[in-house]
């Protein structure tokens, strides 16, 4: 008889506590983002495809065409090309290609870069119809940013 009533009261109390949980959530804030209309802030540590940073002081990228990233890349998805030019110290970058279809986002290129010319992009809306949509010309991208 005692167990009968204690079960009733314990059960009823737990039911009331349950109702409290849901009503709190009901009046609480909504956590959904309406994606195409409102966008989440990208976390600073978010890893996406790499990008040449635009340096406002140099009015351009910081790449010295050392080729470290190309050599370190385990997936061989970076191509860096440069040439000597008259009156400019060191090599000048002429081509920086990223094949994002092969990239494993390991981040070795960003870590190894001696001039911190590389960083992860914020651009997460990546969807395409063919492979060539993911072959990025990073030099062109940074030059576009310059304009």
């Amino acid at each position, binding site marked *: 008889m005692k167990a009968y009533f204690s079960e009733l009261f314990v059960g009823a109390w737990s039911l009331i506590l349950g109702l409290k949980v*849901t*009503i709190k*959530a*009901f009046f*609480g*804030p*909504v*956590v*959904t983002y*309406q994606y195409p209309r409102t966008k989440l802030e990208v976390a600073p540590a978010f890893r996406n495809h790499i990008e040449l940073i635009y340096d406002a002081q140099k009015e351009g990228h910081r790449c010295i065409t050392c080729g470290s990233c190309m050599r370190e890349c385990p997936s061989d998805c970076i191509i860096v090309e440069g040439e000597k030019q008259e009156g400019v110290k060191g090599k000048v970058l002429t081509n920086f290609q990223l094949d994002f279809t092969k990239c494993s986002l390991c981040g070795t290129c960003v870590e190894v870069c001696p001039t911190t010319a590389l960083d992860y992009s914020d651009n997460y809306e990546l969807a395409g119809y063919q492979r060539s949509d993911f072959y990025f010309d990073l030099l062109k991208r940074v030059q576009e940013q310059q304009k």
Partner: protein
Amino acid sequence: MEGNAIFQELFKMSMAMTGIMVLVFGNAILMAYFERKWSAHMHRRLGPMEVGPHGILQSIIDGVKLLGKQLIVPRDADRTLYRLAPILSMAPVVLAFIVFPFAPKLQAVDLEIALVFVLSMASLNVLAILIGGWGSNNKYGLFGAIRSVAQNVAYEVPMLLALLAVILVSNTLSFEGMVRAQQDLIWFVFLQPVAFLIYIVSGIAETNRAPFDLPEAESELTAGFHTEYSGMGFALFFLAEYTNMLIVASVAAFAFLGGYAGFPLPFFEYSGVIWYLAKVYLLMFFMVWVRFTYPRTRFDQLMNFSWTYLIPFALVNLLITAVVVKL
């Protein structure tokens, strides 16, 4: 002279029927939207947002979609029963509304045995579920139907016992009489709190809603009795479920919460409707709240709860009420 009287009666009947149909379908559209919205906010989601501002046209769009769908009859199903079930599910629940007094003068028929009428009409739904589950020749449908019958038999008893206590106090079976008795005394929810609780619990079980939604238990029975139904066949079951919710909430409002009573609003004579709707939708919100709080009960738990807790408590409550009324 006599022709005029017939015309008046016909006019009254068609007006009442129109009003009731508007209430029933409007309620289904509103509840389909609000149930999704309320549940969404309990999950900290937004719910429907795309069709119309804040998705208010969502349930209309869903209705149009269901109207446009093909009514598929499974090859081995019993055609007659299969087609009959959704209609049988919808028609009687609409009838229940003719005896509800929505405001002091707003009532189709003031039946002396209104409560019995409403309960019998509401429990016809079980028959429709049984026919639908049996007729669709589907094992899930049959399981759902059998569960529904067992559950409704178990929960009809405490429901009636709880309402019987109210009948003893108010000394009438008509809702108008109950409302007037509560105006003289006090709302029966304060006089009969145990009966109110028992009524609400068994009412949720009667409408086959979570946590007692065993007849359609999605995780076990796909969709239970309406597994095979498509298009408007499904929509009518869906409509009947929301209408049954409205009936349960209405009976609770009339029998326990004072019906259309409330301090008079300055608008018009029929302001009782506003109080009635406020009480009913508060109860509906509670039902949705319960649905999205508790997990589904197991079948033996469901039965044990009714036979070992609800019925004994209802009986004791009835006995005490009878003794007090007699004194």
